[in-house]
């Protein structure tokens, strides 16, 4: 049986420029009712040893390569380099993948140097098949601000080209102070039972991610397929999950209003729109297309924005 777990995939500690100790980060994650985190300090893995002591919260150990030309998240490999040794990004990415790692592009449209050093993705990747995920929602404003809009467009354009890339939300968590949208996270669909870093890794690798500003939002087809899977063309019923239990416990001062659910496909086109109160959706899925389910509505004073969306399901 599969189950979705709320996780934070982008975290920093005192081992780089975060305000948390590793222990402090883990307890902050627990109080946010997260089931797992990725430890991704800038250019170092010196926090991994402390993370290994944790027995409850799942920790997927990684690193954020904080280069002059972009920030790249690398998860679950022992292969560690000095980023200044990167001469060809495609080769570096391939090498990490061959050593068991997962590759994510962090905040691709953040402003770069000198405002946020190296934060804007300037590398020219040609082999996108080696990239596992893209941070579509990032940082303090995990809804459709300008950088996130561009990241969504980039992700969709890569899906259009046939690459199977998962979306993620990365709080780029450095400290509690200044946090907004407290329930925002990435849900990962994993084998049910005690969550582990390895299970998180499999979920990201298999594209089983759902991004949210708060509500738990995902879907399953009538025959049991979900995000990241490949389905056959033709009519299919999608059963929608929209659950606010965790959100209400954490984002206690935020007001959410769910308005509509959109099924989005190639070219970022909304191919079906239904009220957010609907529990299922019937659609004639077309051959070779990708589909992502989106939840639109209001969050506090921000109206008609993207509140949550799933990774893609692919049609053979």
């Amino acid at each position, binding site marked *: 049986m599969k189950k979705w777990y709320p996780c934070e995939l982008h975290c920093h500690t005192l081992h780089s420029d975060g305000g948390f100790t590793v222990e402090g980060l883990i307890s902050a994650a627990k109080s946010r009712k997260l089931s797992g985190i990725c430890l991704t300090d800038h250019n170092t893995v*010196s*926090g991994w040893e402390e993370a290994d002591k944790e027995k409850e919260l799942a920790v997927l150990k990684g690193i954020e390569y*904080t280069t*002059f030309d972009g920030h790249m998240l690398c998860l679950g490999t022992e292969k560690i380099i000095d*980023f200044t040794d990167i001469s060809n990004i495609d080769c570096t990415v391939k090498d990490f993948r061959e050593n068991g790692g997962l590759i994510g592009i962090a905040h691709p449209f953040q402003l770069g140097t000198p405002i946020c050093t190296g934060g804007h993705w300037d590398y020219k990747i040609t082999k996108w098949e080696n990239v596992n995920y893209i941070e579509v929602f990032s940082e303090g404003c995990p809804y459709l601000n*300008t950088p996130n809009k561009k990241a969504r467009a980039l992700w969709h354009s890569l899906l259009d080209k046939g690459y199977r890339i998962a979306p993620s939300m990365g709080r780029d968590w450095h400290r509690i102070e200044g946090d907004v949208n407290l329930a925002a996270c990435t849900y990962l669909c994993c084998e049910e039972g005690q969550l582990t870093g390895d299970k998180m890794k499999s979920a990201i690798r298999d594209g089983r991610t759902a991004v949210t500003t708060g509500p738990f939002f995902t879907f399953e087809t009538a025959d049991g397929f979900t995000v990241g899977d490949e389905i056959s063309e033709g009519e299919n019923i999608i059963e929608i999950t929209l659950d606010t239990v965790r959100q209400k416990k954490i984002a206690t001062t935020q007001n959410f209003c769910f308005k509509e659910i959109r099924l989005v496909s190639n070219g970022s086109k909304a191919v079906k729109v239904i009220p957010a109160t609907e529990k299922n959706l019937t659609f004639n899925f077309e051959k070779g297309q990708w589909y992502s389910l989106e939840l639109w509505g209001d969050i506090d004073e921000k109206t008609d924005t993207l509140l949550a969306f799933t990774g893609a399901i692919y049609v053979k």
Partner: protein
Amino acid sequence: MSKIILKKTVTHLRPEDEKSVRIIPFNVPEGINKLFITYSYAPKILEDKEKSYELIKENLIRDAGDEWTEYSDYEEFMPLKNLVTLALNSPEGYCGAAHRQADSQYHEIGEAFSSPGFVRGKITEGQWDLKLHVHALVTDVCTCDIKVEGEVAG
């Protein structure tokens, strides 16, 4: 327990050094069981408002594309800062970095303990490299002071 100085150097960085690495090699003789690195750089911030305004505008035009005019409050990005982080390589390979804003740092490297950012490990003899990762260099010149000391075993 006595300490010996393994390296003491002053490096001057200029705007053209931004996005480059400056390697500072030092030799570790036999019988050293800990390293101590004292590092500072100055200035940290760009005081010149006019120049800051220019650099921010350049940054926005380059990275925000057509939406660069959406960013109206340049003050929120000020003061602009130099960011020169320290990374370390032992003869065995990469030991990590102290990627943080502090302009004055002290690190210890050893088998039982290393300062946050650096993995702990045995201090092997041979050539080590300190690396200055020049992430941002916004002032006309930035002076980096580095001292590496070794603790002699026994």
